[in-house]
């Protein structure tokens, strides 16, 4: 009972649907995994200052004042921002850290590919991400880069190291500089910081401390680690945007296949069932055969779709599809996502495809096989 052309078409469409869905969900899961890996090392509280609803720099005097609040163990002002590199049309993220102290050098040598400590010691070295290095090289900067400060002056900074390719997803567009340089490049007031990070003694006290900070400085907004966790959980809103469009299209295509199956067998298929009954097949035999047919078709479509999507996402780095998740900037990292298989996602995909397809095939076959063979054959 194989109508090869039609069966192959259904097989192909089913595999394609599962392939696309599985690929997108795999990518989404991998991105979430990557995000959640570093969640607990992020600052416990990040404080931003808002003037007229816009983020503004925080005066450094507030650091002293905030230290008075009980429960706070450390406060670090941060300087970071973006530098627009016009020739390539990209934004670099610049983070200023305190002049490279001894405590940092071991960490930095672990995190970077080549690390020149002498350049760092001179205090005008920077550590850049792989994407930055690539863009600079394309613009003929190999060992150093000339920033244009807000005053219009050139600021030469040497490349002291490049972050490991393992860290590409986090560091691709990043430039780590001494704070002094950051201030000069941004043209920021040295008595201000971009934001402040706060460390607390007891994690359970974070909410209380945030409340105290808000009372002291109502123009400051606190982003806690928990807030970031919530932000990560909602990074893909499955109810809107791209995912809604994707699921709608897949559901629509699948619905059409199922409708085609359940809207009753064609007279030819009914006749076939009648003939089989006439030559001695019982209804059970017919249903068993139909079950094998639909089970092997849907299961192999499912396996092919999942196998294909695993290969597509992890071996090929999802060409075309990755553009959805990476945008069109010239500064893109390699799409080397961490491998993780969410079994519950696969089980859900399986349950939404295989049993439904089998039911859609068996129900009309069962209806036809309960009729008298003679009636059906006429």
């Amino acid at each position: 009972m194989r109508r090869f052309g039609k069966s192959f078409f259904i097989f192909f469409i089913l595999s394609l649907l599962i392939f696309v869905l599985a690929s997108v969900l795999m990518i989404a899961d991998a991105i979430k995994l990557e995000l959640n890996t570093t969640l607990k090392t992020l600052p416990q509280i990040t404080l931003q200052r808002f003037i007229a609803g816009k983020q503004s720099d925080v005066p450094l005097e507030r650091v002293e004042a905030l230290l008075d609040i009980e429960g706070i163990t450390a406060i670090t002002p941060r300087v970071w921002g973006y530098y627009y590199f016009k020739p390539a049309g990209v934004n670099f993220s610049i983070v200023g850290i305190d002049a490279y102290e001894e405590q940092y050098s071991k960490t930095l040598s672990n995190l970077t590919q080549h690390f020149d400590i002498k350049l760092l010691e001179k205090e005008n070295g920077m550590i850049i991400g792989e994407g930055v290095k690539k863009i600079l090289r394309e613009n003929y900067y190999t060992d150093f880069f000339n920033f244009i400060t807000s005053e219009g002056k050139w600021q030469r900074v040497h490349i002291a190291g490049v972050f490991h390719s393992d860290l590409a997803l986090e560091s691709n567009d990043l430039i780590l500089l001494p704070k002094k340089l950051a201030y000069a490049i941004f043209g920021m007031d040295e008595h201000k910081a971009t934001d402040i990070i706060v460390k607390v003694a007891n994690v359970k006290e974070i909410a209380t401390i945030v409340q105290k900070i808000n009372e002291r400085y109502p123009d400051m907004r606190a982003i806690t680690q928990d807030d970031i966790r919530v932000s990560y959980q909602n990074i893909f809103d499955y109810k809107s945007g791209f995912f809604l469009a994707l699921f709608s299209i897949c559901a629509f295509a699948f619905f059409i296949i199922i409708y085609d199956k359940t809207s009753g067998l064609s007279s030819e298929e009914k006749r076939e069932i009648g003939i089989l009954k006439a030559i001695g097949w019982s209804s059970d035999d017919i249903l068993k055969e139909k079950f094998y047919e639909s089970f092997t078709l849907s299961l192999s479509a499912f396996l092919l779709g999942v196998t294909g999507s695993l290969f597509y996402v992890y071996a090929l780095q999802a060409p075309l599809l990755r553009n959805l998740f990476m945008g069109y900037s010239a500064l893109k990292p390699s799409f080397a996502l961490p491998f993780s298989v969410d079994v519950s996602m696969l089980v859900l995909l399986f349950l939404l495809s295989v049993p439904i397809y089998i039911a859609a095939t068996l129900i009309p076959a069962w209806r036809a096989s309960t009729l008298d063979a003679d009636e059906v054959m006429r």
Partner: protein
Amino acid sequence: MIVLHEVCKQFMQGDEEAHALKKISLEIKKGECVVLKGSSGSGKSTLLSLIAGLMQPSSGTISVDGKEISKLPESFSAQLRRKNIGFIFQKFHLIPHLSALENVIAPLIPENLSPNSLEEKAKAVMEQCGIAHKAKMRVNRLSGGEQQRVAIARALVNNPSIILADEPTANLDETLSMALITECETLKQQGVTQLIATHDPLFFELPFVDRIIEIKNGEMIL
């Protein structure tokens, strides 16, 4: 072997009831070769379908090998049909997109035999019917006569004890008809019960035919 007792069959044609068979009582012994004679629409095909269990009688009983088939559950009646009865249909009723070999194998599939033994059995019977050379060809590409032979092979593949044939020579030329008649004679010698519904005069003069029963307007003419 086959016992019919006051069998009636009615069909609904629109709002009216059409009587295809009216109180048919008949007994066919094991090994008998019986010819059912009658014009089209007389009820011969309906009678054969009832005996094969393809439909239920409106009233009366039908027994095959001592089992009342009208009362058998569906899986048992299918098994009976598969193991004991070979049916040659008037319109062949082959599955068009399958090959000749696959059509002949079809009745054997529920027996769960190995693929090799299925093929062996099918090929043996196809040789017998002279259609083995077209085994791999799709049946919708065969001529009428070739399809007829595939249908006959399919009916014989299970070594049935009863053969029911509905106009078996309708699409055969004289040579092939004679070949079929020889086959019927062989089956008669093997003790196979045969019930042949036909209006081909070739069958009315055959020496191995035990009885000729005439059916007119659903009634048996004795």
